[in-house]
């Protein structure tokens, strides 16, 4: 208790007070600077990305039982993103005619999986993850099935909803 009182008295003498004022002024300046800078830098991260349905082709363009890659423009892509603003999905049309859209990203660490049509398997080039045609894990390190994107048929067109990169 005594030491606290001592410390308080010391802080309240002329020089201690001046030091406290200087520190407070410095902290205030830092705070005033930090607010816009941190906000600016975090802007792209907290921003809500627009989502959009993208037409990828007419229903009849896709054979039953086939899986094909469809490219789509990312909804929030800036004009200076160039090709980097594109994205894609594996679109599967099952024998009964329904559509499923899978993310390219392996659920292990995000590398792009490739569809091997003859083997009916998705394979990942990075660490050897393998998936069946319906996205279930067939082997390797992936912890869960391939991520699915929302897909619908609208006015005869197959549409896929642009989604964030699945973080698994």
């Amino acid at each position, binding site marked *: 208790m005594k030491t606290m009182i001592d410390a308080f008295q010391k802080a309240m003498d002329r020089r201690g007070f001046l030091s406290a004022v200087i520190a407070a002024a410095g902290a205030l300046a830092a705070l005033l600077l930090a607010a816009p800078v941190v906000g600016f830098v975090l802007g*792209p*991260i907290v*921003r809500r*990305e627009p989502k959009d349905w993208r037409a990828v082709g007419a229903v009849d363009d896709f054979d039953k039982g086939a899986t094909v*890659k469809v*490219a*789509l423009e*990312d909804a*929030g*892509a*800036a004009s*200076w*993103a*160039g*090709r*980097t*603003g*594109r*994205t*894609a999905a594996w679109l599967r049309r099952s024998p009964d005619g329904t559509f499923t859209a899978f993310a*390219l*990203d392996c659920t*292990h*660490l*995000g*590398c*792009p*999986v*490739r569809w*091997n049509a*003859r*083997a*009916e*398997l998705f*394979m*990942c*080039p*990075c*660490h*050897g993850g*393998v998936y*069946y045609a319906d996205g279930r894990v*067939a*082997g*390797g*390190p992936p*912890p869960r099935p391939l991520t699915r994107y929302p897909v619908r048929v609208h006015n005869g067109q197959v549409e896929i909803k642009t989604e*964030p*990169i699945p*973080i*698994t």
Partner: protein
Amino acid sequence: MRVVRAIGRWLEDRTGLGGVIGPLARHPVPPGARWSYIFGSATVIAFLLQMVTGAALATLYVPSAGQAYQSLQFISEHAMFGRILRGMHYFGASAMIVLMVIHLIRVFLFASYKFPREVNWLSGAVLMLLVLGLGFTGQLLRWDQNAIWSVVVGAEQAGRTPFIGDFMARLVLGGTNLGADTLTRFFTLHVFVLPGLVILLLSLHLYLVIRNGISEPPQAGRPVERATYRSWYRRMLDEHGVPFWPKAVWRDAVAMAIVVGVVLLLAWKVGPPPIGDPPDPSLVKAHPRPDWYFLFYFALLAIMPHALENYVIILGPLLVGVVLIALPFVAPDGERSLRRRPWAVATVVAMLTIVGALTMAGVHANWSPHFDEPVLPDAVVASDDHAVRDGARVFHDRACISCHRVAGYGGRRGPDLTTVGDRLTREQMTIRILNGGYNMPAYGSILEPGELDALLAFLQSRRHP
């Protein structure tokens, strides 16, 4: 000449810099600090090389997601000395990592981190983190297919952080997807933030080297004692110290010439790392691989037991950090000589062996399936039996060949099947093929009638000649 001297005198009178730098340059250092002590300053030389070549490259590099690739192609193929400069920046980075690690090992083996040089060690540990950060962000600025998918892999790893994983992943991507913000953020880190922090920490590191003095080469039976070390060290310098300039620094000058010479030679003879396909997230042809100094981690992520993954990705780097921070506090005094610290030697040997072995595994990347294997040639199939020949085709078409090797063709993920007919019976093969295994898909629902029989005939025919 007289004019020059007059200007020099005037400058000295107005700035007094000579009076500060002169004694600093001539400060005494321990007489035994010879060739094994050059790696710290050699790392600084490599860093300066990176600053100079990096600044030059930045005059042509366009940090825009849509144009970086083309500007880098221009630098590599058309810009005057562009190929050499890119090569120097690449090999300069490698040199910096290698020299830094040798410096770290030297400091650890000589126990130079002990009293009173604990903060030297800590600032060095932070510097190492920053340099690795520079290496990773630099690779991404190549901004080709490999780079953008490496960013995704980085984001996925950041995403494993408990509670704030999504936020961390977005921080890496610069949003929810790859795009315009991704490259510029890494560019800012690589060119402004990380080098600035390195300069700051390096200043502290070097100031501490001057303040605490270069650690003398250790001697068995002469332990560090906190009460007496400083006065003993000062006395030793007074009696035996040699002036840093020029008696010690000439070795650093030799090292500087070697570092710059070797980097230039490699840049000229080997050239910069190739730029891959353009950065297009809608294309799947990508083999994301980190540069050689991160291959060990790439390998670790592939071959460790899958269940341990989350712990290793998050706790692994944390543990390394804790060990680095704790070291000078756990062992602040006592023996420095290697003869009295066999565990230090064992630690270094073990670490080098582990990282070396993982790096080799990363180079071969046997776990990666082969996508473009040709059909097995007749000479390999070596049979007129229709079933065997059909089976060889199934082996190729159903992508068995992506992971299994037969007579030098195919991937290495699964066992080599060149002589599998000697090892497994038909029944054993059937069970394995239909049900799959730990890393193998179950082919029960994939193979069509007849294909299994053909495949079995082919595999049964694979025997020692």
